[in-house]
């Protein structure tokens, strides 16, 4: 991981120690050097503290199973292999659970982008009487955490034949991604000057044509952010998968790993548990490395921009 989170551009930079024109800007260089060293020291300690458990988990997952299960005295990292992963796939059948997880996460992410983009496009460029009410309704979803309506939701989805179905759980994730997604995409569309859309309309382009050929480049960052958070939300989801998927062949990876950990597959193989945990980390780390700046944008926009 060589990338790093870049701070958003600032007008000025007070934060590199003293302000540029501060009265005491010409402090002795010795104390400045001491500060630099101190900063590097604290920064290294903090970074190691946060990264170490992750690296440790990866190393640990490569240990032979009997060492992971064994007492503290017998720890070594000399005999590393992929055995736990191979065992998890061959003996537990993790391949299909990974596939289920990926299907749900990708399906939920793609559909979230499509549905929130269309809704936001309508709200900004094709408003009608009552469209604001619709927006309010979507935002109200945020006041109802899905956990709090889990039981009626389960009964309803059961009645509709949406439990024990990958499509069903995708729809579930899609619904509860809407408030964040619509809000974010609405901001993306709102920033595009009206003249751009107006000009395209005068040229006779239809709504979808305008969306795909004129507006697309301007809303891609928002769409990537929606995709990212929808994917990660579904990938890491535990309670939803636990509730709505009861047939073993439909389990997602987290539910399968929980079953390994709680002994549903016989004796608890801790090697498999830690290998499963590391497999759960992988897509998150890959996405993090690939589209890091979208994280910060999405978080700050979602949480703070009033």
């Amino acid at each position, binding site marked *: 991981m060589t990338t790093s989170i870049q701070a958003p551009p600032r007008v000025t930079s007070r934060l590199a120690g003293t302000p540029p024109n501060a009265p005491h800007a010409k402090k002795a260089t010795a104390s400045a050097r001491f500060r630099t060293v101190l900063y590097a020291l604290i920064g290294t300690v903090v970074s190691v503290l946060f990264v170490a458990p992750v690296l440790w988990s990866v190393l640990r997952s490569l240990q032979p199973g009997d060492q992971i299960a064994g007492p503290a005295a017998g720890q070594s990292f000399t005999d590393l292999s992929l055995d736990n992963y191979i065992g998890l796939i061959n003996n537990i059948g993790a391949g299909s659970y990974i596939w289920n997880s990926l299907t749900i996460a990708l399906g939920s992410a793609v559909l979230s982008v499509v549905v929130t983009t269309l809704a936001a496009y309508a709200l900004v460029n094709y408003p*009608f009487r009552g469209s604001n009410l619709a927006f309010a309704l979507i935002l109200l979803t945020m006041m109802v955490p899905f956990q709090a309506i889990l039981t009626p*939701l389960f009964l309803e989805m059961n009645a509709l034949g949406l439990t024990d179905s990958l499509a069903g759980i995708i729809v579930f994730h899609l619904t509860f991604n809407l408030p964040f997604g619509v809000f974010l995409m609405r901001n993306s569309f709102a920033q595009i000057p*009206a003249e751009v859309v107006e000009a395209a309309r005068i040229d006779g382009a239809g709504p979808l044509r305008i969306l795909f050929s004129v507006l697309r480049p301007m809303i891609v960052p928002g769409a990537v952010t929606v995709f990212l958070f929808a994917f990660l939300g579904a990938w890491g989801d535990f309670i939803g998968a636990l509730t709505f998927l009861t047939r073993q062949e439909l389990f997602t990876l987290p539910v399968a790993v929980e079953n390994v950990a709680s002994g549903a597959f016989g004796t608890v193989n801790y090697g498999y548990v830690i290998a499963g945990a590391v497999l759960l980390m992988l897509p998150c780390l890959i996405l993090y490395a690939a589209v890091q700046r979208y994280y910060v944008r999405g978080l700050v926009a979602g949480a703070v921009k009033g």
Partner: protein
Amino acid sequence: MKTATPYQTQPRAGEKAPRRASRRDSYTGMLMLAPAVLLVAVFVIVPLVFAVVISLTNWPLVGEVEFNGIENYVTAFADTVFWGSILYTLGFAVISTALGITVGYLLAMLVRSNRRGAGLIRTAVFLPYVIGITSLSFVAILEFRPDSGALDQLLLNLGITPAPTAWLLDGTSATVLIVLLGAYVGAGFTMIILMSGMQSIPDELYESAQIDGAGRWKQEFLVTVPLLKRYLGLLTVMGFIGAILAFTQFFIITGGGPGTDTLTTMLYVYNKAFGDLQVGYATALSFVVVVIAAGLTLIQFRVMRED
């Protein structure tokens, strides 16, 4: 991920005013909004209304449904395990939010500068947040085991504990570990939010504070903290909502045990519905959660609208 936004109907400065819509444009808009509205109506509004009905029955997951009025609510009122779980969850919310904001603030102070390496520290701190609580909960059950877990190995080798300790077999120590895990996972988020707040504070304020003779810490408390009130309020509410709904890490790590020592409200509701199959009763209990969560979200909207 839970985020929140204030509800606005008026276009703000910089947004375009809505055009006069022709009838055809209205239909286009309706068609494009339909999927989102339909999903919310079917999977949010309907279950919410349906919940009222269910909570007034004995609705077992399997078998005959009987209407029994407010009996569930009467039972809930006297259910000591339930109120115990509410108290436990609120306590967990207070402790984990306070710790999370403290840690996040200190980290934000560290990484808000443009010094070399600040970006790398941000990346490192953000890593656990990206990975998420589910995966790290599995790591936790492995490493919190007595003797063979990393935590015990570390403490035994450092001579802090004399003998292997079963951390998860004691309610207090299990809670402490789960709180620490939550702080570890959530620190990156809190840090990023507070950092973006800190970076929006104009330099002039610090310069004038400095001319008035305020030192570094004084500047922090007299300038930064008051200006970050909104951010701090927001993070407090979000932390509370997250903690009230805490489920995954407790389900995986302790299962609510030993006994009911670490039983969160969500865990209890889940067990009632899908363990004891008492869907009616579980739904009645959920209402308490809905009321608390909705109340907190309202506060959150309030905080966000104070500009």
